[in-house]
């Protein structure tokens, strides 16, 4: 009996982890931000978290994402974190762990988080020529 249960769980584990979690597109102008409840409009600042279990949480601002993770003591291990590419907001979202961030008031993001994400340090530097801020990585933001 016991061995059977173990096997059952093992099979479950293998099958569930085989489920591929991926980015869930945001329906701009219709979906609300998980943290601030505002309708997500500005595709330059949107962000999304896919939890370990595959549930998607969508945000209108990096600031909201960070606050939400802090308030809920969100366990990041195994979660996927996506952020909009400031330069190409219509293209695919970036993996937050690989993105480079700038933080500046001029962005005027929906909830004043004022973070913008870029695909590479090079892309961020181009804009940063005017802003003179430090280039940030994901661990710097928390």
């Amino acid at each position, binding site marked *: 009996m016991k061995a059977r249960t173990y096997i059952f769980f093992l099979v479950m584990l293998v099958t569930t982890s085989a489920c591929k979690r991926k980015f869930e597109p945001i329906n701009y*102008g219709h*979906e609300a931000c998980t943290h*601030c*409840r505002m*309708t997500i409009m500005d595709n330059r600042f949107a962000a999304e978290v896919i939890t370990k279990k595959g549930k998607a949480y969508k945000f209108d601002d990096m600031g909201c994402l960070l606050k939400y993770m802090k308030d809920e003591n969100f366990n990041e291990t195994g979660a996927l974190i996506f952020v909009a590419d400031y330069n190409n907001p219509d293209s695919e979202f970036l993996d937050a762990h690989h993105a480079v961030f700038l933080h500046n008031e*001029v962005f005027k993001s929906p909830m*004043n988080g004022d973070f913008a994400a870029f695909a590479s340090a090079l892309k961020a530097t181009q804009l940063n020529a005017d802003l003179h801020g430090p280039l940030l990585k994901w661990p710097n933001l928390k």
Partner: protein
Amino acid sequence: MAKSEVNMRRTLVFVFFNLLLCLLANGSFATVIRVHPTANSIHKAIDHAHRGDTLLLQKGYYKEHDITVSKKLVIIGVGFPVIDAEGKFQVFMIKGDSVTIKGLQIQNIGEASLTDMAGIKIINAKNVVIAGNRLINNTFGVYIQNSTHCEIIDNIINCHVKDELNGGNGIHAWKSGQLLVKGNAISGHRDGIYFEFVTNSNIVGNTSHNNVRYGLHFMFSHNNTYTKNTFKDNGAGVAVMYSKGVTMTDNYFLHNWGDASYGLLLKEISDSKIEHNYFIKNTTGLYMETTTNVAVQQNVFQENGWAMRIQASCSGGSFTKNNFIGNSFDVTTNGTMVMNTFNNNYWDKYDGYDLDKNNVGDVPYYPVSVYSVVTEKIPSAMILYLSLLTDIMDQVEKVMPTVVPDKLKDNHPMMRKIKL
């Protein structure tokens, strides 16, 4: 060509003449300068004008942009002259105190990623009056920044061609105070009226409709009063966040339909009053999250999907003398903790009795229905709403309450509709 040259000469002569007059009079009285539509005529007229002068812009089509006004001037349009920014530029930048702009049509403002481009921008100024203008197809209509004691009155602000997602707001105010926004009609923008860090202001008698996101949206804006406004058919209704001392009276919140749409959404609002408002035909009339000490009195909630959704994180709320008529659900909540009080409301679903004939029901009314509790947890259960199953559940719950939060009740429900 010849005509415009004549016009230009005429303008210059006029300007010169007025200048002379002004000098003769030692600058002690204001002159009236007529401006005709020639190349850069507004720029030139403003350069030549003296503090306190009046510019009369004659009817016509002006292709001018980035007009900075840094001295006290009155600029009045005669017969709605059109100033066109050709979809590339912005028009007025007001940096001086006591400027008045009246009767102009400002159109086709451009869009830029790092600057917010606006028809009329008020920057670090006081006592500016913007009245009776038409602002058509602009990214931002009127943009107020670090300014106080400004009046935005009776303007028509409409946008119908811009990119839906990245458009700007009709009236946008940031870090300002003592503003009066009155009698404007705003439509087609991202947010009709948007306030951020704005204090001690009055928003009276505006109509904000068919905006992409919110009719009115404000954050971190304390001690403002909103009276007699109508917010209708906006993408997501009205959102009010992170503010204290908000007074909202006699407003209409009409017909905001959609999954994330609210007549009025309150988030982190404290010490505020919501009185004499009408919430009619919204998906959710009033949504409240993490509010403290908000008094909701003498409002009408009619024909909404949910009249009120009050999250368990709200405390110190009092709901008194409101009329609830024809809503699918009167109140829902997401927990069992109830730190708000309900008293003397009229609920059309109340079927209690009044033996002592004092017009107050003798048994409490529980406004949270079983099925609203179910749908709060499992939204897709809505598909079974109005089925026999829900009726049975409702009846069973009445006899033996188990699901409904028993502390959320109105102990003194009114038998008749409250006259407001």
